[in-house]
């Protein structure tokens, strides 16, 4: 397996850091190496939020990502800010509310992540899990079993069914 570098971006409060942690934990459950880091502005809500995950079979030495293999953007602000960090040939996953950027050299998935969470699952806060379901369907980075296990370990008690459905709905967004 090659080294995968993933950047999850959006606004503070969208659960992207939790999403990054879950993805890294599921990779460890699969016996891989994973490193997760983050950056956020001084504010806890709003602002630009970014979580980074590196997954590899090898030791991960440099802990940060310069250019990523996959970029997730849930807001226009985040997409505009980070689109230049996506590798040539890389994969961009954006929410339907985000404008399609003008880059010919990447693969773009524009999917209704926020709408699926808000309308279908009736809970805005599972958008991060919907996104994880979609990302893993695209990249097949970790086993579905490990991803589900990692999700259920991190989410509040009583929301297990909701989050399991969020993963499935996310997966179904990728045809």
């Amino acid at each position, binding site marked *: 397996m090659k080294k995968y570098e993933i950047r999850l971006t959006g606004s503070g409060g969208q659960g992207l850091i939790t999403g990054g*942690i879950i993805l*890294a934990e599921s990779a*460890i459950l699969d016996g891989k190496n*994973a*490193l*997760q880091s983050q950056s*956020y502005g001084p504010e806890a809500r709003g602002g630009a939020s970014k979580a980074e995950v590196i997954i590899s079979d090898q030791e991960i*030495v*440099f*802990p940060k990502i310069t250019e990523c293999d996959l970029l997730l953007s849930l807001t226009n602000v985040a997409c505009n800010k980070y689109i230049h960090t996506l590798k040539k040939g890389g994969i961009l996953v954006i929410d339907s509310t985000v404008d399609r950027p003008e880059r010919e050299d990447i693969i773009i998935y524009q999917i209704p992540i926020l709408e699926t969470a808000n309308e279908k699952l009736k809970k805005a806060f599972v958008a991060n899990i919907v996104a994880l379901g979609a990302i893993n369907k695209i990249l097949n980075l970790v086993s579905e079993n490990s991803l589900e296990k990692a999700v259920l370990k991190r989410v509040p008690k009583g929301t297990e069914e909701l989050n399991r459905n969020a993963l499935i709905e996310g997966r179904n967004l990728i045809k």
Partner: protein
Amino acid sequence: MAELKLMQGNEACVMGAIHAGMRFYSGYPITPSTEIAELSAELLPKYGGKFIQMEDEIAGVAAALGASLAGLKSMTATSGPGFSLKQENIGYGIMAEIPIVIVDVQRSGPSTGLPTSPSQGDIMQARWGTHGDHSIIALYPASVKEIYTTTIKAFNLSEKYRTPVILLLDEIIGHMREKIDLEELKNIEIYDRKKPTKSDDKYLAYKVNDGDIVPEMPSFGEGYRFHVTGLVHDETGFPSNNESVADKLLNRLINKIEDNKQDIVNFEEYLLEDSEYAIISFGAISRSSKVAVDKLREQGIKIGMFRPITIWPSPEKEISELSKKVKKIYVVELNAGQYFLEVQRIVSGQCEVRKYGKINGDIIVPQEIISFIKEDIYA
């Protein structure tokens, strides 16, 4: 059976501290160290310990000193601005020989600087932040696993040498999460302060027994009468203005550390055997340097890295030896050139020393180290 976990650096610091026997934490939260306070608050009561959030950083370190005198292994954590505030009481801890661990998760400064940006700007503050002539122990790990083990080492050294020990982290390693196997760390040894066994009228709180490095340390309330002061004191612990008492005490406090470097100093050598060039780097930035070393070697440049884990006292002997072997040493650090000064002092002309630093809040990436060194070598 491996017990694999994804753990944050700050979290590993608390887990290591509890392993080492920390049962008291007092402090005032500040980014990027806050998780250390949060997790200590959550875990300490479960281990029969105490957590207190104090009114500010000064009180945070003061309460930790008090708790240590009362017998509990104590820790406080902060970042640059709070580290400045703690300096006066760090000096008190050195003078009164009180073991505590002070964690500084470095961020950009001076003053409140860039609140969420990384830095390695407190290297010299760790050494000389408190006033007066003194020696200090400061350790600086570079991974989540090493944060765990180095926090234990910080407690062990503070107990063994009866002195405050500074644990330097940075925003990058403090906040990042990586894989750790708790099972393989289970049996790390811990060191507890040596206590006196009998109290009599002739008990001298600050007398060093033959064969010992530091005076035995009873806990307050165990029946020993003693006095604790930041003033120069004789073996009774009471203040003295006598020159020979001052000379003896201050030199003893310095030498208990300087004479035991063999035990205290810890470092990593990476691909140095055949090297013509060396990078000196520590903390998060050593990880950038390591990648740079690998890439430069692929391009035929014989280079390696020396990584001090014990920043203070500096690995003087090892750096001096290194400077006799290589053509040039590059000190790569996330500041304007602090450890560079120490390396230059140690090397004292035995080879060339150059610095590469940065102070804009960004991390140093491997590529810029590679470019800097290649430009320098082929210039």
